[in-house]
């Protein structure tokens, strides 16, 4: 555990030091993945499936706000759908606009959640989403998750029916529109999925906020169970063809990922919980303080101070001859080592860092001690 904590601290340190590079790089990767996913899923307009274009757009997204990734993703998908059929593109645009005007306007800061929802649904590991969102965000993020689910199911449905749509003539414009709208409103699997995700997010959020020991672990387990139950009930009622094996496997993966998130976000030591009670003029306070598990990463600072001896004029009285003695090379190194707690002991984050040892070594000729400059 101590090693893991140390790794965590190192990762945090690495992130805080290189945040100005890491954030654009991560945004670039996210934009690249999103656009590649759109191109891979739809890919009707060959000109958009160009590596150079994708890289340029991803690079733009890395410096622009997160919402731009959604904007470019939507633009790419609409252009692909336009190539497939104008009616489909118009219907998709209307659905995008409705989602933006009604829902996404409220939780625009959760744009990353929407992107991750679409990506994880495409990667067939959607069960991570509600657990992670419930642990890290607020219940309002369920709106973004719902929007992401709608987008994914709409695009997948259009992609599945692409051959039918392209074979339809211009006189069947309303049939094309109907197909897109049915893929959103009549898709029971999607509605069950949205309901399961929304309920799970709320349950996970409520449980993890409770003042009980191991609230995060209980929240994630409760979330997984609720998610599975809602999906199974939905499958029984609406016949959504849910694969139980995949759902259970996905839930186990979700639990593992949730534990990793917990380790980075909420790593506390319940064995050292303190309960204190005090009062002031107006209130009684019942405080439960749970210390965080933390360990400062071992860091070594080597400080070298090299001083050159001052040229000493050696006066040889016997010869009455003044000579300048060559400066002796004197190295004085000060090594300051700072180490964190070891042997798996944890300490409260407010505590002091580990021991500090100072080693002063010097290499010099004999009798040169008098020639050092005082530092």
């Amino acid at each position, binding site marked *: 555990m101590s090693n893991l904590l140390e790794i965590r601290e190192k990762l945090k340190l690495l992130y805080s030091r290189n945040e100005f590079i890491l954030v654009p790089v991560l945004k670039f990767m996210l934009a690249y993945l999103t656009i590649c996913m759109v191109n891979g899923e739809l890919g009707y307009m060959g000109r958009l499936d160009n590596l150079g274009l994708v890289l340029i757009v991803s690079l733009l997204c890395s410096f622009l706000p997160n919402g731009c990734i959604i904007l470019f993703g939507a633009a790419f998908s609409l252009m692909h759908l336009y190539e497939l059929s104008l009616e489909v593109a118009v219907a998709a645009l209307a659905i995008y606009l409705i989602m933006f005007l009604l829902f996404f*306007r409220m939780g625009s800061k959760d744009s990353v959640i929407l992107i991750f929802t679409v990506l994880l649904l495409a990667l067939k590991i959607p069960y991570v989403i509600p657990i992670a969102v419930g642990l890290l965000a607020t219940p309002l993020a369920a709106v973004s998750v719902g929007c992401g689910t709608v987008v994914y199911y709409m695009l997948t449905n259009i992609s599945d029916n692409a051959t039918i749509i392209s074979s339809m003539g211009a006189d069947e414009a309303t049939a094309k529109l109907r197909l897109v*709208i049915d893929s959103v409103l009549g898709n029971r699997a999607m509605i069950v999925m949205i309901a399961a995700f929304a309920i799970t997010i709320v349950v996970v959020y409520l449980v993890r906020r409770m003042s009980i020991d191991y609230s995060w672990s209980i929240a994630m387990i409760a979330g997984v169970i609720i998610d599975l139950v809602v999906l199974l009930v939905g499958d029984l009622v609406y016949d959504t063809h849910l694969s139980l094996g995949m759902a259970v496997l996905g839930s186990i993966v979700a639990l593992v990922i949730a534990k990793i998130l917990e380790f980075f976000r909420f790593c506390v030591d319940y064995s050292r919980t303190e309960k204190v009670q005090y009062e002031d003029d107006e209130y009684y306070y019942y405080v439960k303080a749970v210390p965080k598990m933390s360990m400062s990463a071992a860091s070594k600072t080597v400080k070298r101070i090299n001083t050159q001896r001052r040229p000493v004029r050696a006066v040889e009285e016997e010869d009455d001859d003044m000579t300048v003695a060559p400066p002796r090379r004197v190295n004085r190194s000060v090594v300051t080592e700072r180490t964190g707690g070891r042997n798996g002991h944890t300490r409260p984050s407010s505590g002091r860092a580990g021991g500090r040892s100072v080693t002063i070594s010097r290499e010099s000729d004999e009798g040169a001690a008098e020639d050092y400059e005082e530092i």
Partner: protein
Amino acid sequence: MLNEERVILMTKMASYEEGEGKKSMALGRYFRGDYISIQLLRAFFCGTIAYLLGFGLYVLYDFETLIADIYKMDLFVFAQNIIIWYAVFVVGYCVITYAICAYRYARAKKSLKLYYHNLKKLDSLYRQ
């Protein structure tokens, strides 16, 4: 001489100003009523546009049936239904917007209160 408490306080406040505080400060410039009114007005326009889009999709979806039945149906009742649904939709959306905005305003004010408390504390630390 560095004062550790002062540095910690200033770091916390700077972090707040850069992150959550930006939105909270922008929000704190409004009175509660003004902020919620603006948001409700926006919600009304957005809701109206969304309803029109939804209605447009509905018309296109059932275009053939509508064209076939347009002379049979009672257009007055049809229009009345559209307006009633519109009113229900927009009012419902505005109520949800009101609840969310009121919650956000209360939260932002709370965090700003803490921020100003920290400012006072910092001021007192400098006076010591």
